[in-house]
């Protein structure tokens, strides 16, 4: 039996990695739940954001947090553009999965072309800094990622719940025709949401660059577990991916501490399978 400190540290790191799952899952959940588009390219976009952050920070010696002011707004534009394409070609839910897979492969090739397949590590003060709380270590970058995830999820939740735009979006997700009959401009709202979701990918990417070593193939490593968080959290619910992400992160971390690290994926995917088998109607 591992020591109490080890377990506590595991739970803590599980919470932090869960925050990142939530951050990556937020945009995915919004576009799936409210626009009925499964955007696989979300992960590739996040990694593009991570590489941009890497270059801006190393080549231009920009503080990584300044990148947050540059990359997400640019990605907003990408999101709007992609939504225009989806609407123009009337892409179905399943079609969107395939189209965005094609986009993923293209972005991956682009990354490999510009940054090569070598590993890249962004060396910053944030990456290594950590606070000591009693016997536990709190890494600063991961704490910031968790706080950002919570803030974005909370703001999005409030935006969807209390503003006119948010209510319109939820109405469209229920029934676009009825919503249109009540004067909701679905197209414009969808453009905003798609842009926002891409911008969130940019934010997530900045934190991925701060915390992890980058390689183009890493794009695929996140897909399974983040999808698990998105489905467990309930599609279109901004708080869902974060909560489910933390649950998955903690259970993975505990599995790693109690058995071997390689067993960790079993937890999230078994959870995902169980949710799909027992409550398919919820998704």
């Amino acid at each position, binding site marked *: 039996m591992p020591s109490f400190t080890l377990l506590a540290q595991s739970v803590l790191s599980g919470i932090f990695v869960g925050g990142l799952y939530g951050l990556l899952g937020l945009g995915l959940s919004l576009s799936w739940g409210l626009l009925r588009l*499964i955007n696989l390219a979300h992960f590739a976009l996040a990694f593009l954001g991570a590489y941009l952050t890497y270059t801006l920070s190393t080549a231009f010696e920009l503080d990584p947090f300044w990148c947050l002011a540059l990359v997400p707004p640019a990605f907003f534009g990408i999101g709007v553009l992609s939504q225009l*394409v989806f609407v123009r*070609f009337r*892409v*179905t*839910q*399943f*079609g969107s*999965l*395939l*189209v965005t*897979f*094609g*986009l*993923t*492969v*293209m972005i*991956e*090739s*682009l990354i*490999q*072309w510009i940054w090569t397949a070598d590993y890249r590590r962004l060396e910053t003060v944030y990456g290594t800094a950590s606070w000591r709380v009693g016997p536990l270590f709190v890494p600063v970058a991961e704490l910031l990622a968790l706080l950002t995830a919570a803030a974005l999820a909370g703001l999005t939740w409030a935006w969807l719940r209390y503003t006119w735009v948010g209510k319109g979006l939820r109405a469209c997700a229920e029934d676009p025709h009825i919503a249109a009959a009540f004067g909701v401009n679905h197209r414009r709202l969808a453009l905003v949401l798609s842009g926002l979701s891409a911008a969130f990918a940019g934010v997530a990417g900045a934190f991925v660059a701060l915390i992890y070593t980058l390689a183009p193939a890493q794009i*695929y490593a996140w*897909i*399974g577990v983040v*999808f*698990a968080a998105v*489905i467990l959290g309930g599609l279109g619910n901004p708080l869902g991916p974060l909560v489910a992400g933390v649950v998955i992160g903690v259970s993975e971390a505990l599995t790693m501490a109690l058995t*071997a690290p*390689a*067993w960790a*994926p*079993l937890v999230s*995917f*078994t959870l*995902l*399978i169980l949710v*799909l*088998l027992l409550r*398919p*109607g919820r*998704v």
Partner: protein
Amino acid sequence: MRRLAAPAAFLAVGLGLLVPAAATLPAFYESFLYLVLHWVALATSWSILSGFSGYFSFGHGAFFGAGMYATAMLATGGLPFLPTLPLAGLAAAAFGVAMGAVVFRVPRLRGELFALLTLAVTFVLATVVLNTRIDGGPGVYLSAVPLPRLGGSATGTLYVLGLAVALLTVATAYAVYHARWGAGLFAIHDDEDVAEVLGVPTYRYKLLALGLSSGLAGVAGGIHAMFVTYVTVAETFSIVVPLYVILMSVVGGARHWLGPALGAVLVTVLMYGVTGGQTAVAGRAVVGLTLMLVILFLPEGITGFMVRRRSNRPGAPAPRPVSPRPAVAQRRPSDTGGPPLLVCSDVRKAFRGIQALRGVSLEVREGEILGLVGPNGSGKSTLINVVSGHHRADGGRVLVGGMDVTGRDAHEIARLGVARTYQIPRPFAHLTLRENVAVAGMFGRLGHRRRTAEREAGRWLEFAGLADRADQLPAALNLHQRKFLELARALASEPRLVMLDEVLSGLTPSEMTDATRLVRDIRDRGATVVFVEHIMRAVMELADRVVVLDVGELVTSGAPQDVMRNPDVVRRYLGTAHA
């Protein structure tokens, strides 16, 4: 002669492709050709389940990997290489069927949910393989396994094996595509509930398709283990396999037996052929771009596009009969007052606390036309859904022809001779009218062979006045024609009991006259009719007997005139009289 053409073509292609093996090409070309055939086998095996039945799987890597590891384990364990291949297929098929036996029991687990589930299963299998003695982490080397000589060289041997599995897979896809159960799979693709109600044993067919699909992928995996000679979890279960398989099938057209093979050749040539070394990155980008463009511009793939162009060619417009007439002579005399064909006793059904049926008991006699009326929400459609087996009753019993069918699957009830129509027509969108109707002939009470069913379907379409549109897709029909298609489909199984759910609603008065005549024709041909209707003129005109339901209970039954004068019925429809 046509029956022999396809096998002959397969033989010719197979022999033709054997030439490279005999000619001992440089190993590079043999490897390249092997890879093409490898992907042909994987993509085509995927489409047997996913392309045909519409259950898009992201888990093909799991079956492929199960086969790969089965061969790796058995061959390194001392078994000769060739006998491991059928065992690899069996292992993968067993894994697939075990998964399907659970997953296919869950309703609504389709589309992207099924895709994600199969992806998750892949990762679970990968984790288990990685952490147990199957792999254990370092991977499995097969370099010490002796490879029997079938071609000029080692790569030649693998090429011959790849050719064999590719031909076997494409031939299987061809056979399934043209077989009766292939038609069943296509019906499942478009509307699984309707397929089941028409008599397609959906669960068994899906399981069978999954078993074949995963088994063939397993054999391809077994050969591939020997090709790569070093099997690792990261490579085997990576997301690349399912995604490329889907890409190839979709590019070629997943609904056609040859589509995935075409797509596989195209994509593999793009991936390995045109590009090499430095330009490999660009090659991947081209693959990604191809996928995007195909989905955007040719969502049904190359073969789908070609098939559609062919079927859209305008045929000679045949004159549409003004009034539908029966195409077949009377089968049985109607004998009102005969023994009960349908007996419902104390049937109950609730949906999440809403009691839709609160113990309904009724009998329908052989040869009668029974009108089922009642206000909206009174449980009429629920009753039809329970009798046809779409919903399972919570309590009570349903007997058809004296046989207890309570809780039986819908396709078994259909085979006893029960057919129904839907209030909102639900045609199979991707099947022609003829194929739509033929499904009923193949899987209903008659169990026709495919060709017989398609010939008979033509006669039923004539009966419904749709003969000139037999080779069009249902999207070309208006509401009135769709309703008649529903009727033709229900009748094509020559059922003993037909349940019509509001066939008349939404029709114009003259169309309604056509439809009422049709209903009477159906009875005159010996079938028993239960019809749900709000249009009282039609009820009075057609029904021998009327049953009134309200809030899930039977209010009264009897001759139409008597029932309509019943004060209780009047009150329930129109409210209490105060004058």
